[in-house]
């Protein structure tokens, strides 16, 4: 694996950094207070091609490589976790459609999602269903002319502004995926406010009451909505979150190093105190480790290597756990100042906590990773025994 960025990737990184520093970073705290993202920002992101970052060029997307897209997520994440959320869910729906959508669905939606003309959100989580995601309670009944959906979704990122939703519902008792447009009769959106973090990600509850959608709004096939359609979307989501956590960690480190370099106590800058140095060393090292995991995930994605699925899970797990600790230490270094809205570090900590919960909680990732490791270990042992027997 070549861990040096190419010249093109470096140029792209500069472009993303310049955009984020000019258009997002100066306003992120205000967005957090307002609990909203302005449409002007979304238009700019659309014009820059960021909303269609992973959409194939034949549908008007930028068709970024995995590493380049990761760099975009990193730079956006450095400025605002809420804006990463927007990029994530738009990309999740795009990815699901690009992978499993019909030709008609791709033609209808991908160009409009790529440009930002239409915004999307991913509707999986429900009031009673979080980690147990394949057992959603929302139901879809097939009739002659279409499906009728009934149920509720909760904690839907960008639900307040999305035009189209990818909804996972049980059809004939099997998880299935459907496109539901905002204007659909029987479909309503209820804003959620007062969240701990991701405050400007404009979360919503979704309510479906005899919501009728055409047959052609089924994505993939009945029974494959969670395993394949949501599977493709969630892998993309984990990847975005991993890189977004990298960016957030770097924002924390910048803040910590700045503060430690200027704030003086006991006659010396904080940076001279060893217990502060310990926290700085931990955050720097863990961020470097996060970066390598992100790069490796991107490398495997670009090859289409099936190992990318588990690697992305590991990356999301490590990146989100690390940034939660990094943000905590960053605030600790800032002391009471860190608890004030005059500094962004309290926002970093609040957003970092959310990263441990979304796209598969820390505990779910731990279960998946441990089981995968045990299986690999058992397989390796059996293969080693076979080789020994053959060589004997």
């Amino acid at each position, binding site marked *: 694996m070549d861990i040096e960025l190419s010249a093109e990737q470096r140029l792209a990184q500069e472009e993303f950094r310049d955009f984020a520093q000019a258009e997002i970073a100066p306003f992120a705290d205000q967005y957090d207070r307002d609990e909203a993202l302005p449409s002007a920002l979304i238009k700019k992101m659309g014009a820059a091609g960021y909303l269609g970052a992973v959409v194939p060029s034949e549908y008007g997307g930028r068709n970024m490589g995995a590493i380049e897209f990761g760099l975009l997520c990193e730079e956006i994440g450095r400025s605002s976790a809420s804006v990463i959320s927007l990029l994530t869910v738009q990309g999740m729906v795009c990815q699901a459609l690009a992978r499993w959508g019909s030709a008609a669905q791709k033609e209808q939606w991908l160009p409009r999602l790529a440009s930002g003309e239409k915004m999307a959100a991913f509707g999986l989580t429900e009031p009673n269903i979080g980690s147990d995601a394949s057992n959603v309670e929302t139901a879809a009944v097939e009739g002659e002319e279409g499906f009728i959906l009934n149920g509720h979704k909760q904690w839907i990122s960008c639900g307040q502004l999305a035009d189209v939703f990818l909804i996972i519902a049980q059809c004939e008792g099997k998880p299935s995926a459907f496109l539901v447009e905002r204007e659909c009769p029987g479909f309503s959106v209820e804003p959620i406010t007062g969240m701990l973090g991701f405050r400007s990600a404009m979360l919503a509850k979704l309510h479906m009451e005899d919501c009728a959608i055409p047959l052609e709004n089924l994505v993939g096939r009945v029974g494959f909505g969670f395993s394949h359609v949501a599977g493709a979307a969630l*892998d993309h989501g984990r990847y975005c979150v991993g890189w977004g956590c990298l960016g957030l960690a770097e924002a924390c480190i910048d803040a910590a190093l700045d503060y430690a370099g200027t704030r003086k106590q006991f006659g010396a800058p904080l940076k001279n105190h060893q217990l502060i140095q310990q926290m700085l060393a931990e955050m720097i090292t863990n961020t470097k480790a996060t970066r390598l995991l992100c790069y490796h995930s991107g490398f495997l994605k670009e090859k289409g290597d*099936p190992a990318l699925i*588990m690697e992305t899970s590991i990356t999301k797990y490590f990146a989100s756990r690390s940034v939660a600790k990094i943000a905590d230490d960053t605030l600790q270094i800032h002391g009471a100042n860190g608890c004030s809205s005059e500094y962004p570090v309290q926002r970093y900590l609040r957003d970092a906590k959310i990263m441990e919960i979304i796209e598969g909680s820390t505990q779910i990732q731990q279960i*998946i990773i441990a089981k995968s490791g045990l299986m690999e270990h058992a397989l390796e042992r059996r293969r080693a025994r076979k080789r020994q027997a053959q060589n004997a």
Partner: protein
Amino acid sequence: MADEKVVAKIREILAQFAAEDVEQDQDIFATGLVNSLFAMQLVLSLEGEFNFEVADEDLDINNFNSVNALVGFVEKKTSA
């Protein structure tokens, strides 16, 4: 008779992501051997190993739920 090389490759894929010792006709999904990531791991493995794309119209459980089913699916896609 199924191409033995295809059977071997399928078994190798399943061993990596699900389990090594499955019967030819054993329902992989019903055994509880697979987790939520398996579907995409299987799709990517089949595409990489046999050089075809799994499309939305291929989403039929009868294409994926056993070694025999997977062999039949691969042979159908690679002879097309």
